[in-house]
């Protein structure tokens, strides 16, 4: 007797955005009563796969079948009506409605003439609320609720839809250990109800106890498939997440002169963002001339950390530069005074040329010095010299990233903060940037704080490594010991 057909079947999925192939030939299936984990670092294409299943994106090729029906290209509401439910990564309750009303929304049919409130729907909403543990706050509004309750509302809405297939995006981000356990229980209950569950997340660790199988992606393609153990042992997966055999060139801390008062000191930093604790009790320091890497997956809090240093988000705790607190200085002041960011979003002036972008970076310099500095940067990034009259928006991803770094360097920074410089770049380009960083390290006395999820790229440059996970520093030490000591929690 043949196995029952899969509830969700994705085959040969392909999606391109302009010249970039986000997803190439992805195929997997999820059966009723099964949990599949879809993992991949940022830029791996897993979000595009999710959006293709939900109908938010239309795949260029391949098929998406729900209960044997082809749904690729259908509008989202029709796919939802067929029985596909979604638990979003970020809680998005209706703020003006009570918890009960939010859950009720999941129970309503898509009718224009539903004018009378129904007792049955109400009762069912209460039952669902009880199942997820929201009975006490049914009549409260989301703004007054803690983070975990907001996540419960999301899962309650999904349960209310009674879906055959459930997609869950990063279910445990921002939850404590206890909350994670109760959430995991709700997810297994959904599986036991006979639904097909697809969990999407960055790494295996968060879902290892939960999933039956894992499908791992990187750069738009599959790199491994199998049980948790199989995937975690897979060579390619280990290389992507932990880096392969790496040569490190770390200088010991004692080599730096400012041992007493490090150039940058961060003490007990906490940032709350949209209710979630983005950073909690983070402490780290960077010596003058040192190259420190902060390693962590997407969503760990690296960007928030850097934004706090740059004065772009409010925070609790202390951030000191050469002993003097940065609190109270405007973001522009902090940048002018020598702490410059090359941000994750690049923030280039798209319609200005490469040369003009660089000149904007050098706005504080005299004409001669600006010209000299430009030449030096063209030397560091030769491709920029070639493209100097081209507008920034027409550059490739790698060229834009190099321009972002070069523009930041035009400001003659004392501390350069690099936020995910290799995101979405091809290996060849990563190599070029890596070489430029190496030259920078050897020919100047610049201090660098690098935030990366790509360990292979970050470790060879670093003198010291911090690991940031869910807003907390969980490991600090020498890069050569990283794979041995921190690897397990990373994968």
């Amino acid at each position, binding site marked *: 007797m043949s196995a029952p057909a899969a509830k969700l079947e994705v085959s040969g999925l392909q999606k391109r955005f302009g010249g970039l192939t986000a997803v190439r030939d992805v195929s997997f299936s999820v059966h009723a009563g099964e949990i599949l984990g879809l993992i991949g670092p940022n830029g791996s294409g897993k979000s595009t796969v999710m959006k293709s299943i939900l109908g938010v994106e239309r795949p260029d090729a391949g098929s998406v079948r729900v209960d044997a029906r082809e749904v690729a290209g259908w509008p989202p509401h029709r796919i939802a009506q067929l029985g596909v439910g979604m638990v979003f990564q970020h809680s998005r309750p209706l703020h003006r409605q009570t918890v009960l009303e939010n859950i009720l929304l999941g129970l309503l049919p898509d009718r224009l003439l539903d004018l009378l409130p129904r007792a049955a729907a109400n009762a069912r909403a209460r039952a669902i609320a009880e199942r997820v543990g929201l009975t006490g706050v049914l009549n409260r509004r989301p703004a007054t609720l803690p983070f975990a309750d907001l996540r419960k509302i999301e899962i309650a809405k999904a349960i209310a839809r009674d879906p055959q297939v459930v997609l869950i995006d990063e279910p445990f981000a921002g939850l404590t250990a206890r909350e994670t356990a109760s959430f995991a229980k709700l997810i297994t209950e959904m599986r036991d109800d006979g639904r097909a569950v697809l969990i999407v997340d960055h790494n295996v660790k968060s879902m290892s106890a939960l999933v039956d199988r894992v499908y791992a992606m990187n750069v738009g393609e599959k790199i491994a498939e199998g049980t948790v153990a199989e995937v975690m042992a897979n060579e390619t997966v280990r290389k992507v997440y932990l880096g392969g055999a790496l040569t490190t060139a770390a200088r010991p801390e004692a080599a730096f002169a400012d041992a007493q008062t490090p150039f940058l000191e961060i003490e007990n930093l906490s940032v709350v963002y949209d209710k979630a604790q983005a950073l909690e009790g983070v402490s780290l320091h960077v010596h003058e001339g040192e190259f420190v890497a902060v390693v962590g997956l997407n969503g760990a809090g690296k960007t928030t950390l850097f934004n706090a240093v740059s004065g772009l988000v409010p925070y609790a705790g202390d951030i000191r530069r050469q002993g003097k607190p940065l609190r109270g200085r405007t973001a522009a002041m902090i940048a002018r005074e020598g702490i410059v960011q090359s941000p994750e979003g690049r923030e*280039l002036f798209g319609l200005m040329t490469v040369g003009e972008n660089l000149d904007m970076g050098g706005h504080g310099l005299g004409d001669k010095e600006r010209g000299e500095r430009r030449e030096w940067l063209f030397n560091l990034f030769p491709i920029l010299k070639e493209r100097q009259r081209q507008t920034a928006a027409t550059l490739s991803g790698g060229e834009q990233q190099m321009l972002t770094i070069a523009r930041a360097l035009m400001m003659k920074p004392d501390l350069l903060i690099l936020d995910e410089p290799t995101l979405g770049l091809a290996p060849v380009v990563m190599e070029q940037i890596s070489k430029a960083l190496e030259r920078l390290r050897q020919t100047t006395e610049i201090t660098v704080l690098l935030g990366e999820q790509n360990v292979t790229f970050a470790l060879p440059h670093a003198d010291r490594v911090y690991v940031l996970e869910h807003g907390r520093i969980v490991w600090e030490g020498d890069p050569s010991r990283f794979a041995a000591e921190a690897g397990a929690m990373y994968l």
Partner: protein
Amino acid sequence: MLFWQILIDGFAISSLYALGATGFTLIFGVTGVLNLSHGAIMVAAAVAAWAASGNFGAGAYVGAVFGVVVALLLALATYYLIVRRLQLSRAVREEEKEIFILTATLLWGIMIQEAIAYLFTNNAKTVLPIVDGVVTILGVRTPANEIFTAFVCWATIGALWLFVNRTLAGKAVLAASMNPRGVTLLGIELSTVYVGVWAIYGALAGVAGVLLGMFLGVSSYSAGPLTASAFSIVVLGGLGSVSGSLIAAYVVGYLETLTAYLISPAYRAIPALLLLVAVMYVRPRGLLGRR
């Protein structure tokens, strides 16, 4: 003969529209604000110039400068009292800020308009022109004032272009219209840029207003239609695109002039509106719009 007349008249009117629209689109492009008190500020400049040069006998030049200064002050007041207050307000949710700013600037415009009507009556006024007399171009007798108007409009637009493309401050403004976060990251205070932009806007609206006052005259009733035509042009050309506004200003200006001459002055606003509707349906971004 008629052809040349239409060409010249259309050019003068279009130049005036272009200047007014440039200011309007500059503010939108850099700060994201659709300033519905635009027309009122222009009228205020014209009436101030009229009062100074005529009533208080300060002469045409001084009156004109006074008018521009008044517009500058009103623009800064609009920024500080209204726009900035609402942008920083925590009582209004992000998604709603736009409509609140729209409504507030509209009310502010009405207040200015009514204040003018109260202080100076709502009769039409013509500002004392700086240039007098009539010249003959291509066989058409044209008031020298008309030539002067077109000239000053283009000189002002040219000065703006030089500013934006050749000075650091101007480039900072341009950069802010593309990526405000990027500007901050490079150590330039955004708040300073914004104040500068509103001041420039005030000057542009002031010059446009004073010239309009000299060319065609204004009354407090002109405020609404002036705002309407400015944003029609800006939408047509593409919100946030200065070159788009310039082109659109000439399209609208000539459409209006042609209609007024060949069909009837009463219908002059219609073709431009029809064009606007067509654009809204077919290409809401406008000719060269970015946002």
